[in-house]
């Protein structure tokens, strides 16, 4: 009997290698779990049939293009879209024997932090079905924590891997910008978008990262990546951890979140790390404002391609312009419309310097503040999300409140830095996430630190109601 709630991908690989289970049995176990629990979780938008290969199943966020498998980006405008080629990350995953289990729910075009913005309805948090799983990658997060998939791919522009991992209680890595190809991935904000692993533990995250990362001639922003080391050390001797005081003191951090993060930092000290307070004076204060200019500006350009001419939805119109405008009104939900309009406004004549140009300079300030801290520290630690999972629908009418969910994940994204969430405890019976940020290309150092902490914390990743 395969326990899909606990089985890690590494363990699944062992079972396959020792021929203790077949690929068909493994795939069927997850399909059974999906049949049982997805009606209440709504993690998947599409579930695949067994491809008949002895591989480890992989859930894939529905912004990642999969040949012959619908890819909607959570949007009505792509509801009928079926890619004719695989994204590079899917090519890489298949080359290593992974099989696509299904496509997971997401806020429309990955814009959101709750999956409330999915055109196909929200996903539910496996710990409490009345609460959000986070977003935008809430479907991948609910699938992994709910035992519907051994691991998953997500995408992260301002926190869409890390924040759902925090709210659902598992591991999510947003890799260094440029380490993972975006070819074949639905574009949101191209100077920020990254694909990364969603996993039950740190070693699985490292394993999946090693499979998907590397230079790709089809994405000119990718670079060569240092070899990935699967972590196994259980101490933190010599590790210098900086704790930016603004990230723990920002308005809205719940006391239970602070308490769980502080306990984890005390454990880190007992494992041999030095823990010292430091400061990111402007990154936290100005990060969200900077992000919500740059990301919408880039989104307004990227989403211009949805014009009803070549693929996706088309509404009728008397002339070309009317067809395009009606298609976009019918196809986009409120959040993409808001961001397209904010981005268009910020880039428009007369406002460009005041908004987009200024935000690009703030981005430099944020990057420099982080660079300076990494002269003294190996990793930075903070809460990933200021709050635990909140009720579904609680913030849908207040976009600015929704944007503040990302206040702690955004700064490092602006600087192109890798960041990883590990669960570090519970508050009000819901998972709390610890965020570890490193310098660019320091994934191995983050994996080592996170693995040692994970062993010491001993967090049970199976939601209490499913044990």
């Amino acid at each position, binding site marked *: 009997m395969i326990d899909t709630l606990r089985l890690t991908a590494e363990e699944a690989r062992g079972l396959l290698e020792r021929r203790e289970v077949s690929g068909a049995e493994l795939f069927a176990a997850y399909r059974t779990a999906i049949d049982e629990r997805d009606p209440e979780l709504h993690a998947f938008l599409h579930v695949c049939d067994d491809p008949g290969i002895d591989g480890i199943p992989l859930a894939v966020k529905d912004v990642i293009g999969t040949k012959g498998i619908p890819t909607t980006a959570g949007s009505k405008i792509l509801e009928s879209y079926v890619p004719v080629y695989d994204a590079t990350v899917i090519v890489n995953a298949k080359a290593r024997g992974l099989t696509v289990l299904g496509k997971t729910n997401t806020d429309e075009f990955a814009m959101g932090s709750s999956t409330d913005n999915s055109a196909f309805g929200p996903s539910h948090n496996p710990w409490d079905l009345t609460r959000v799983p986070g977003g935008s990658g809430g479907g991948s997060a609910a699938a992994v924590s709910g035992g519907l998939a051994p691991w998953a791919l997500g995408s992260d522009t301002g926190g869409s891997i890390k924040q759902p991992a925090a709210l659902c209680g598992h591991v999510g890595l947003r890799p260094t910008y440029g380490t993972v190809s975006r070819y074949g991935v639905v574009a949101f904000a191209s100077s920020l978008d990254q694909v990364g692993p969603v996993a039950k533990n740190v070693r699985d995250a490292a394993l999946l990262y090693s499979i998907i990362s590397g230079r790709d001639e089809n994405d000119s922003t990718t670079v060569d990546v240092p070899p990935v080391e699967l972590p196994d050390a259980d101490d933190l001797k010599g590790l210098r951890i900086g704790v930016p005081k603004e990230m723990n003191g920002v308005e809205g951090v719940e006391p239970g979140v602070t308490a769980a993060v502080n306990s984890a930092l005390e454990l880190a000290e007992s494992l041999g790390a030095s823990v010292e307070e430091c400061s990111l004076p402007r990154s936290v204060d100005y990060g969200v404002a900077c992000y919500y200019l740059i990301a919408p500006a880039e989104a307004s350009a990227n989403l211009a391609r949805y014009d009803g001419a*070549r693929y996706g939805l*088309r509404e009728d119109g008397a002339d070309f312009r009317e067809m395009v405008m009606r298609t976009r009104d019918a196809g986009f939900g409120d959040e993409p419309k808001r961001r397209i309009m*904010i981005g*268009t406004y*910020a880039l428009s004549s007369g406002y460009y310097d005041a*908004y987009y140009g200024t935000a690009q300079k703030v981005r*430099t300030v944020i990057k420099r503040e982080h660079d300076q801290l990494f002269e003294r520290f190996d990793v930075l630690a903070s809460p990933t999300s200021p709050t635990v999972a909140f009720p579904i629908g609680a913030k849908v009418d207040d976009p600015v409140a929704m944007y503040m969910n990302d206040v702690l994940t955004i700064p490092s994204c602006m600087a192109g830095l890798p960041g990883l969430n590990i669960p570090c405890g519970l508050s009000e019976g819901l998972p709390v996430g610890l965020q570890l940020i490193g310098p660019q290309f320091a994934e191995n150092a983050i994996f080592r630190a996170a693995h040692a902490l994970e062993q010491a914390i001993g967090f049970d990743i199976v939601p209490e109601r499913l044990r």
Partner: protein
Amino acid sequence: MTRITRDEVLHVARLARLELSEDEVAKFQEQLSDILAAVSKVSELDLADVPPTAHPLAIENAWAEDEPRPCLSLDEVFANAPDRYDDYFRVPPA
């Protein structure tokens, strides 16, 4: 505090090729004003000597040889087309 006018909402929507309903215009006027007020915070900082960052990595141009490579067939290219006419995407008259 900057409030965006109804005409500005309509202007931006036109630039972005979005046809908005009357309800949407009113709702977005409110919400976009709130968002613009929040993001205007970037103007508080003294950025006189700060260069802009467009991209987080210090990478050079990525060059590729200008050589033909295999690509999608026309049937694949048109597989998702709303309206194919021979080897063209057909759209309403401009």
